[in-house]
C-alpha cells in the first residue's frame, strides 16, 4: 500500500461498525437462521421420513385391479350341483348417465369448444350455464337413443319399468351416499374430535355415485358385445362386465307326488303336481354382503397395510350366509387374483386367482325333494286330518285341540347308519316359504329355523329304547325281566304317573300286565319305563342320554359362530356376544341329585318316558336310533362327505341282549297288531297298516310328546286361546329284506298329536321314497 511519511494516517481498523452496518449484518444472520430452519425441515422430510413419503407417492405409480375367483360348487352325494357359479355378462349404467351428470358434462365440453376457451373464461357462471343448457338436450337425446332404448329392448321392459329401476337405483345410491358421508363424518369425529372438517365431506362423492350399476343381468355374449360397442362410442355411459352368478338349480323344482299309497283318507289315484321352492335351502344356504364382523375375522387389508387375497372387503365381497355356504366358506371361497400395472412401463404383474374348491354334501337331492314334498301341507299328510283325531263309537268325529285342516310344521331326517351320512334333512316351512310371509307370520312360523338341526323338542316316548339300553348297561334291568304294568306307578296314587292305557276319568282302566322289554317298547308302556328310570335315577339317565348325544351339538357340519347384539340395560351400546348357531345341543337335566334341590321320584320317572327338562332335535333322534342299530356304536353324523379317513366310532358298551330287546320291541311296534305304530283306525273301524311296504323291514317307535302350550285363535273370535297339544314323533330305522338296518329316520310334526297317526304315514312315505330311489338294492350299502 503506497504511503507518505507524516501524512500517513492509520487505517480505521479500530473504529466501531456503524448501526446501519450492524443491522445489515444482523439481517444477514437472520437469513442464515431462516435458511437453517428450511434446511432442517428438508432434512427431516428427505431423511427421517423418506420411507414414509416414498411409499405414499409410489402407490400412485401402480394401478391395481383384482381378479375375482370363482366360488366352488356345492354338490349332492351324486354330484348334482346344488349351488354353483356360472359365467355371465352384466350390462351396467354409469351413475352419471342415470342422474343426468353425463349429459351435463358432455354439454359443458361442447359449449366450451363452441364458445372458445378464452371467451369461456370471461363468461359469468350464469352465462356458462345458459350455454350448457343449449347443448344438454342433444346429449340427453343421444343417451336415450343409443343407450336407454337398447336397454329397454334387450331387457324386454317398458319405459315405466326402466324409469322405476333407475329411480330405485338413484334412491338406493343417494341413501348409501348419505350413509357413506355420515360414516366418514363419524370417522373424522372419532379421529379428530370436535373440530373435524366435516364440511369437506359434504362435497365428496360417495363410491356408489362414482360406480356403474347393473341394469341388465346375465345377458348373452352377443348382447354384451353390442353394449361394448356402445361403451366405445359413448364412454362413460355403459359398462359391460363379466360376472359370475351364484345359481341354485334346486331353488325351484317341479315334482309329482304319488298319493296312491297314502292312508285311505288322504289317498288319491291322481298324483299331485307341485312347485317346490327352496329345496335344501337351509342346508345349502345363501350368500350375503360381508358385515364388519366378517372383515374383522379376516380383513383384506391388515393394519400394517399388507393384503390378504382371501380376506374380505366391506361393501364389496359376498360371504356365505348360512348352511354349507357359510360353514364351508373357507373351502368354497378361493382367493382373488391381482394385477398390478406399472403405469410408467405398462408392465403387469399377475397373481392368478385360486378358484374355490367344490364341496360334496351327503344329501341326495332327489330324496330331499321327495321329503320336501311330503311335508307340504297341500299334499295332505302334514296337516290335521280327522283320521288322526278319530271317531267315537257312534262314528261321530272327535275334536282335537286343533281344527281339521290346520297346517303343521315339521322336520324329517334320514341318516345312513353305517357311515353317519345324512341323506336328507327337511324343514317345513322352508326359507323360501318365509319370503312370502308377513312379519308376524315369520315370528310365529319361524321359517328360518332349520328344524332337523335346530328345532328342540321333548322326545316323549321315543326316548324309551335309550332308557332300556341304559338300564341294561347299568344292571338295573335283567335279560327277559318282566315288570308289571298296573296302570299307575305309585301303588296308592292312580292320579299320576299313569300308563297311557289307564284313563279312569274316561272309564278306561286297562293295564298291560307284566311286560318284558320288547313288549314294553312295542306297546310303549309307561309303567315299564317309569320303573327303569326310577331304578336308574336322574344322574345315570342323564349320563347315558349324553352318551347317546343329547345335550351336545352333533357338529354335523352346519354350526357356526355368529355375533349377536346383547340386549338389556346392563349391556352397553353395541355390546355383542358370540353364539353358535346352525345346530342345537338340546338339553338334559343338570345337577340331578346334588345341591339344595333334590329331584323327586316323579321327575326321575318322567325322564323314563322322555318328559321333563329334556329336549332334543330330530337329528339327535335319528343319530340315537342309528347308534342302537349299530349295536351301541356311535358314529358322528355328518352332512359333508369326507374324502379321506374313517369315521371315528365309540362303543357305548350296551349289552347285546338289550340291543336285541330294542330291535324286537321296535319291530313289533310297527309290525305287530298291538304295536303303537302298526296301523291307523279308519272311521268304519278297519285298521290300515302303516308300514306294509314290500321289500323292506322297518323298526320304529312312535312318540306323542307333550308340547308347550300354543296360543292360537281356534274359534275365530279374534282372540288367541291357550291350546295344549302334543308333538307327533316317529323315529326308527329301516333295512332291506336281508334284515340289516341301513337307514335311520326321524320325523316330527309340531303340535300334530299322535305320533303313529300323524308322523307315521310320512315316515312310511319316506321309506317308499328310499325304496324307489334304489336305496335297498343289494349292493347299495352307504346310499346310492
Amino acid at each position, binding site marked *: *500500500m*503506497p*504511503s*507518505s511519511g507524516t*501524512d*500517513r*494516517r492509520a*487505517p*480505521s481498523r479500530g473504529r466501531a*461498525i*456503524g*448501526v*446501519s*452496518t450492524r*443491522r*445489515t*449484518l444482523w*439481517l*444477514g444472520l437472520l*437469513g*442464515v437462521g*431462516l*435458511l437453517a*430452519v*428450511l*434446511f432442517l*425441515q*428438508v*432434512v427431516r*422430510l*428427505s*431423511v427421517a*421420513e*423418506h420411507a*414414509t*413419503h*416414498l411409499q*405414499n*407417492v*409410489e402407490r*400412485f*405409480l401402480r394401478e391395481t385391479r383384482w381378479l375375482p375367483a370363482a366360488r366352488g360348487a356345492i354338490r349332492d352325494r351324486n354330484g348334482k350341483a346344488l349351488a354353483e357359479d356360472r359365467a355371465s355378462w352384466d350390462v351396467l349404467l354409469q351413475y352419471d348417465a342415470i342422474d343426468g351428470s353425463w349429459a351435463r358434462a358432455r354439454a359443458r365440453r361442447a359449449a366450451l369448444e363452441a364458445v372458445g376457451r*378464452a371467451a369461456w*373464461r*370471461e363468461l359469468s357462471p350464469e352465462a356458462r350455464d345458459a350455454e350448457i343448457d343449449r347443448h344438454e338436450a342433444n346429449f340427453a337425446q343421444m343417451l336415450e337413443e343409443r343407450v336407454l332404448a337398447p336397454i329397454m329392448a334387450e331387457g324386454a321392459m317398458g319405459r315405466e319399468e326402466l324409469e322405476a329401476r333407475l329411480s330405485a337405483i338413484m334412491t338406493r345410491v343417494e341413501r348409501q351416499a348419505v350413509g357413506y358421508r355420515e360414516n366418514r363424518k363419524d370417522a*373424522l369425529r372419532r*379421529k*379428530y374430535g370436535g373440530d*373435524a*372438517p366435516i364440511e*369437506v365431506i359434504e*362435497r365428496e362423492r360417495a363410491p356408489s355415485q362414482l360406480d356403474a350399476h347393473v341394469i341388465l343381468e346375465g345377458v348373452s355374449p352377443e348382447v354384451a358385445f353390442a353394449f361394448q360397442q356402445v361403451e366405445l362410442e359413448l364412454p362413460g355411459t355403459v359398462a359391460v362386465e363379466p360376472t359370475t352368478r351364484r345359481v341354485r338349480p334346486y331353488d325351484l323344482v317341479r315334482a309329482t307326488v304319488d298319493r296312491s299309497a297314502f292312508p285311505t283318507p288322504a289317498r288319491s289315484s291322481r298324483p299331485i303336481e307341485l312347485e317346490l321352492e327352496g329345496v335344501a335351502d337351509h342346508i345349502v344356504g345363501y350368500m350375503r354382503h360381508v358385515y364388519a364382523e366378517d372383515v374383522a375375522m379376516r380383513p383384506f387389508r391388515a393394519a400394517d397395510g399388507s393384503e390378504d387375497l382371501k380376506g374380505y372387503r366391506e361393501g364389496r365381497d359376498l360371504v356365505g350366509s348360512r348352511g354349507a355356504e357359510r360353514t364351508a366358506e373357507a373351502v368354497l371361497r378361493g382367493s382373488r387374483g391381482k394385477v398390478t400395472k406399472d*403405469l*410408467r412401463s405398462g408392465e403387469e404383474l399377475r397373481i392368478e386367482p385360486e378358484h374355490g374348491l367344490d364341496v360334496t354334501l351327503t344329501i341326495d337331492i332327489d330324496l330331499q325333494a321327495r321329503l320336501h314334498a311330503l311335508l307340504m301341507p297341500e299334499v295332505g299328510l302334514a296337516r290335521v286330518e280327522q283320521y288322526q283325531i278319530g271317531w267315537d263309537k257312534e262314528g261321530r268325529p272327535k275334536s282335537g285341540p286343533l281344527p281339521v285342516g290346520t297346517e303343521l310344521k315339521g322336520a324329517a331326517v334320514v341318516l345312513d347308519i353305517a357311515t353317519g351320512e345324512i341323506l336328507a334333512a327337511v324343514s317345513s316351512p322352508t326359507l323360501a316359504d318365509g319370503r312370502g310371509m308377513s312379519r308376524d307370520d315369520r315370528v310365529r312360523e319361524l321359517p328360518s329355523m332349520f328344524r332337523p338341526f335346530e328345532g328342540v323338542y321333548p322326545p316323549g316316548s321315543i326316548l324309551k329304547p335309550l332308557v332300556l339300553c341304559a338300564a341294561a348297561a347299568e344292571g338295573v334291568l335283567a335279560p327277559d325281566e318282566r315288570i308289571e304294568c298296573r296302570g299307575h306307578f305309585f301303588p296308592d296314587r292312580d292320579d299320576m304317573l299313569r300308563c297311557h292305557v289307564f284313563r279312569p276319568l274316561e272309564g278306561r282302566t286297562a293295564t298291560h300286565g307284566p311286560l318284558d322289554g320288547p313288549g314294553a317298547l312295542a306297546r310303549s308302556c309307561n309303567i315299564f319305563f317309569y320303573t327303569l328310570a326310577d331304578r336308574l335315577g336322574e344322574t345315570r339317565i342323564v349320563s347315558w342320554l349324553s352318551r347317546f348325544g343329547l345335550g351336545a351339538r352333533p357338529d354335523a357340519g352346519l354350526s357356526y359362530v355368529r355375533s349377536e347384539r346383547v340386549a338389556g340395560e346392563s349391556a352397553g351400546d353395541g355390546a355383542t356376544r358370540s353364539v353358535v348357531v346352525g345346530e342345537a345341543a338340546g338339553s338334559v337335566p343338570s345337577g340331578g341329585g346334588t345341591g339344595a334341590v333334590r329331584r323327586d321320584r316323579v321327575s326321575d320317572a318322567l325322564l323314563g318316558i322322555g318328559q321333563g327338562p329334556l329336549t332334543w332335535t330330530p337329528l339327535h333322534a335319528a343319530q340315537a336310533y342309528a347308534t342302537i342299530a349299530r349295536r351301541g356304536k356311535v358314529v358322528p353324523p355328518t352332512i359333508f362327505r369326507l374324502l379321506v379317513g374313517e369315521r371315528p366310532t365309540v362303543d357305548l358298551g350296551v349289552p347285546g341282549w338289550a340291543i336285541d330287546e330294542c330291535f324286537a320291541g321296535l319291530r313289533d311296534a310297527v309290525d305287530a297288531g298291538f304295536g303303537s305304530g302298526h296301523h291307523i283306525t279308519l272311521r268304519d273301524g278297519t285298521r290300515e297298516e302303516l308300514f306294509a311296504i314290500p321289500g323292506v323291514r322297518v323298526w320304529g317307535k312312535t312318540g306323542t310328546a307333550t308340547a308347550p302350550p300354543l296360543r292360537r285363535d281356534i274359534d275365530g273370535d279374534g282372540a288367541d286361546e291357550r291350546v295344549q297339544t302334543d308333538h307327533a314323533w316317529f323315529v326308527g330305522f329301516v333295512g332291506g329284506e336281508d334284515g340289516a338296518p341301513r337307514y335311520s329316520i326321524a320325523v316330527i310334526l309340531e303340535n300334530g298329536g299322535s305320533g303313529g297317526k300323524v308322523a307315521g304315514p310320512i315316515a312310511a312315505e319316506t321309506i317308499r321314497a328310499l325304496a324307489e330311489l334304489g336305496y335297498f338294492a343289494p349292493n347299495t350299502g352307504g346310499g346310492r
Partner: protein
Amino acid sequence: MPTGYTATGLYSGTSARTRLSLRLATPAWLCVGAAAALSAIGISAIGTTRPELAARQGLFLMVGVAAACIVALVPPRMLRTLSWFILALSVVLLVFVLLPFVPKSLVTPRNGARAWINLGAADFQPSELAKIAFILCSAQWFALQGPPRTLAALAFPAGLAAAIVGLIVLEPDLGSALLFGPTFLAITVVAGIRMRFVWMAIIAAAILAPVAYLGVLRPYQRARIDAITAQIRGDDRYESSIGFQGWRAMRLVGAGGLFGTDRDRARALVSFNKLPEEHNDMIFAVIACRFGLAGASIVLACHGLFAAGAVLLAAMARDGFTRLVAVGIGALLFAQMTVNIGMTIGLLPITGVTLPFTSYGGSSLLSCWILTGILFGIGIRPPTGGEKDPFDA
C-alpha cells in the same frame, strides 16, 4: 497527490488499473453466480416434467441476462432519478389491469386474477415492476430524509407500500403483496428506524392476524391456513381435500431422499401424484424429488449466497441509496424464496409465490435478473459517500 487512505476510504489515490481490478472483485459476483446456478437448475427441473417449457425458460433466461447487463450499466445516481418514473409507471399499470373496460386482449384474467398484461410474445406482470420501483423509491426516500426516527417519517414510504400492496391485493395476488412486508421492514431497519417501532409493528401484526383471518381473508384463504396448521402438526385430515397441494409437494420432497431419482421416475412420480403447478410454484418439490436432499441443499445454498452477496454489498456501501437498494433486493428475493420453499415443505400455507430464478415464468425471471443487474451495477462501481456509516446519527 499523495496516495493512501483518505476520508473516502480505500479507493482514493490508487492507479487506474487498481481501480479496475477492485470494481471486478465485488460480492455481486456471488449474486450473479447464484442466480445463474438457480436459473440452470430451474431449467433442468422444468424439463423434468414439462420439456416444452424448459426451452422457453431458456429464452426467458437469455432475455433476463441481457436485461441485467443493460441495467448494470445504469449508474445508481441515474436509478435514483428514474425510480419515481418507474414507480409512476408501475402504479399506472397496476391500475390499468384493474380497469374493467380494458380489453380482454390486453388483460386476460387467469385463475381468477387480473395480474398480467398481454404483450403478444409474453405476459408482463406489473407487480414485478412495482417491487423494483418500491425498493428504489424507498431507498431514495430514506437516503434523502435520513434515518426514520419518528412514525411521521415513515408515513410516506408506508403509505406508498400500502397503496401498492392494496392495488396488488385487488388483482388479487396475495402472495406478491405479502412480500412487500419483509422488504419494507428490512429497508427501514437498515435505514435506522427505532427498534421499538419494529416491535410495535410485529406485536400489532400478531394481534391483527386473527382479525384478518376472520374478517379479511376469503374462505379459500382461511381454508389454506387451516390446512397448513394441520399439516404442520402432522395431521393429515386435509390431505385429500384443501391440503392436497401442500401434502403432495411435501411428500414428493421427502420421496427424493438423499440424492433423488432418475428423470423418468421423477417425472412419473410428479405426474401420477398430480402435483399442481409443478413447473411453477411447486418447482422446489420437483427439484427435491429429482435431485434429493443434495439438490435441495444446493438451491438453498445458492439463495444463501445470493443473500450473502446482497448483504455484503449493503455492508460495504457508503451511501444510503445503494445500501438500501441492496438490502431491499436481498430481502425481497430471500423472502420470496422462504415463502415458496416454506409452502412446499409444509411450513407455510400455499400462497402462489414463485421461487426466484427457478420457477417457470418470463415476468418473474426477468424481474429477478433485473434486480441482479441492479446489484451488479452497484457492486462493480466504486462506493460513493463519506467515511461515516450512512444513516448513523
